[in-house]
């Protein structure tokens, strides 16, 4: 079992009702599995798209990236910088 930090931004933070939290998952896990856990813990996030953009430890990754205890997963709405 591992503890993974989760960051929410923009519209996703509004859906989650917070900007930061942590979830417990059986590690190693994939980012997708962390997101599935997030949907359980934060019901508002069930409105997230099926495959949201995600970052692991501040780098954008595919949803099959492996997550370990202490990692940080960020759920990223469609980017609109510039």
């Amino acid at each position, binding site marked *: 079992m591992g503890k993974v930090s989760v960051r929410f*931004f923009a519209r996703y933070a509004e859906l989650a009702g917070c900007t930061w939290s942590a979830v417990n998952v059986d590690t190693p896990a994939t980012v997708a599995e962390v997101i599935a856990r997030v949907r359980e813990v934060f019901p508002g996030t069930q409105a997230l798209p099926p495959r949201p953009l995600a970052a692991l430890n501040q780098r954008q990754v595919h949803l099959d990236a492996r997550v370990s205890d202490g990692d940080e997963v960020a759920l990223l709405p*469609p980017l609109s910088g510039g």
Partner: protein
Amino acid sequence: MMHLTRHPIEVDALLAEVQGPERGGTCLFVGTVRNDADITGIDYSAYEAMAFAEIERILSDANAQWPEARVTLQHRLGLIPVGEASIAIAAAAPHRDEAFAACRFVIEEVKKGLPVWKKELSANGSASWVEK
């Protein structure tokens, strides 16, 4: 150079960072908040830690592609009224081709990969996230 700021962007500072006597061409891109519909401003937010790293990667990639160019950028966060700058990119190189190319490269990479989000604020008090 503070690549992320909550203050109005100072273009002169960006130019001073990249210009030099051996760099005869300077390209400056300034992105400003447009008055689309009845928008009064845009509230920009970011995953700042990741944005810093991504900006460093973009500038490093630009330097790798155009080694004789110097490039920098500044992105503003927080509430930006219509007409004010949200981003500025300055690129200087011995010749204009590299300056233009490096500048264009940076804005396109920012648009693709910078973890920044925009919330448009309207005159009627409503606000909506931009998600293209």
